[in-house]
């Protein structure tokens, strides 16, 4: 096996941006004064608190601008998971009198899936739409799944494991025609997929700062004006009395700074990353036989490479790459604790043996052309060695 090279160890090749990103130094710099100096509770009445209120309002404006929304439609949360919980439970419970049916997909993040499973225990019925082998939801299946009882459709903008981008605009139109609320988990999409909540007919949208060089523990839920939704976290009158709790002031400032950076030039940023991604994927396919690409060939996040190397175990490969200073993932980071094959790859119809042989490289801001070269110089030999040690012949 490859010897860990201590000199290389020090240089981290971080290819797990879909799991999380480092907070950009500019974002940290923007946050810092709000820990120690401008620390006032935005709900207080003195001048110091007014500074905090202004900072929150500015950040809200930034998030709104990034989504084509109005600031009064943006609510800060503790992250993508809380946003998903709030959106789905809040709409389901508030509209119970109208119906108890929810439509979602089999490839959603657990924040959506487990919330739906919970609602099933509360008397709701949930349709988990299938996807094709590329991970795409057919809008026709959405239309056909709608019943008189349907109150919510929740389809993610882009998938965290295979990177597939969904036909959100079409699904939004279907939801609008059916007069059903439409929620999209855009946690992976911000900074890569241009969002316009009006053009896309989105009623609710979840996002999380740490996926686009913002801090962990802060996110937002977009709620279109007029959507009937219950409060999820009860208490003080923060966030227009719709989400209680002292505002995470530095986090909110950081989210505002990060989303402005991430969405200022999505096209150029995506192109830069997609170029590297394409080179990485081409190199992998050229140098490593019996490699299978997961997800869609084109309709995918620019930074996502998800491949299966027949005959090996993804986690073993991940650990060997780690020893080379390369960070990547197998399945979603959230499910790495479990031994089950990824529900996303299963839904795409990937053979279980290939699903467990999958690796995700997710490129992002940190990624350099040199990183791609290093991975391409290390990966083929590493796969070869694992395969030599494997009883499965390819």
């Amino acid at each position, binding site marked *: *096996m490859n010897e860990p090279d201590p000199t290389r160890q020090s240089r981290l090749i971080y290819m797990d941006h879909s799991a999380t990103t480092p907070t950009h130094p500019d974002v940290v710099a923007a946050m810092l004064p709000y820990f120690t100096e401008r620390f006032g509770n935005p709900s207080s009445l003195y001048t110091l608190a007014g500074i905090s209120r202004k900072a929150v309002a500015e950040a809200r404006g930034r998030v709104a601008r990034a989504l084509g929304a109005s600031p009064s439609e943006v609510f800060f949360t503790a992250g993508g998971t809380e946003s998903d919980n709030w959106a789905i439970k809040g709409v389901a419970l508030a509209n119970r009198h109208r119906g108890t049916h929810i439509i979602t997909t089999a490839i959603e993040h657990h924040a959506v899936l487990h919330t739906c499973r919970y609602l099933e225990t509360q008397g709701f019925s949930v349709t988990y739409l299938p996807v094709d082998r590329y991970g795409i939801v057919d809008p026709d299946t959405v239309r056909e799944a709608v019943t008189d009882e349907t109150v919510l459709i929740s389809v993610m903008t882009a998938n965290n494991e295979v990177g597939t981008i969904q036909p959100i605009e079409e699904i939004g139109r279907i939801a609008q025609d059916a007069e059903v609320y439409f929620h999209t988990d855009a946690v992976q999409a911000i900074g890569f997929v241009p969002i316009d909540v009006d053009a896309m007919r989105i009623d609710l949208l979840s996002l999380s700062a740490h996926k686009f060089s913002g801090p962990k523990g802060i996110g937002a839920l977009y709620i279109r004006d007029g959507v009937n939704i219950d409060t999820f976290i009860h208490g003080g009158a923060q966030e227009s009395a719709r989400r209680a709790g002292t505002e995470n002031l530095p986090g909110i400032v950081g989210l505002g700074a990060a989303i402005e950076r991430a969405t200022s030039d999505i096209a150029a940023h995506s192109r830069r990353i997609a170029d590297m991604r394409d080179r990485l994927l081409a190199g992998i396919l050229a140098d490593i036989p019996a490699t299978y690409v997961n997800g869609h060939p084109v309709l995918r996040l620019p930074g996502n490479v998800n491949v299966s190397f027949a*005959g090996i175990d993804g986690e*073993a490969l991940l*650990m060997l790459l780690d020893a080379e200073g390369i960070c990547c993932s197998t399945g979603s980071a959230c499910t790495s604790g479990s031994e089950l*094959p990824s529900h996303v790859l299963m839904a795409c119809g990937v053979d279980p043996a290939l699903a467990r042989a999958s690796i995700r490289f997710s490129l992002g801001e940190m990624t350099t052309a040199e990183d791609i070269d290093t991975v391409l110089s290390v990966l083929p030999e590493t796969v070869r060695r694992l395969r*030599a*040690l*494997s*009883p499965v012949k390819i």
Partner: protein
Amino acid sequence: MYNDIVMDHFQHPRNGGEITDADAVVEVGSPECGDTTKIYLTIRDNRIEDVKFQTLGCAAAIASSSMATEMIKGKTLEEAWKLTNRQVSDALGGLPEKKLHCSVLAEGAIREAINQYRKNMGLEPWTE
């Protein structure tokens, strides 16, 4: 996640590979997680003269195969039969709780290989 001994055996597995003219070859798989381990034994005078393995599995599974094969090399079949996955994981300095089941395969494969050899020799397979 893993200690240094596990990482060492994972990154530098002992006895990895095949034996073309082995006296016993078995492959066992875990229906639970899809791990597969293949064991090759060369036996002389009731002793394990050589052993090789191939494992499809995580770092814990590979390290367990490496350690287990080290532990039975040169041992009599009776001694090798007595190897438990607990001994293997202990020798590895411990495995994470949820990875313990990965060390089971090697032990099972070794026992199956020993019994395969005994059957080839016309002997009764051992049961416990």
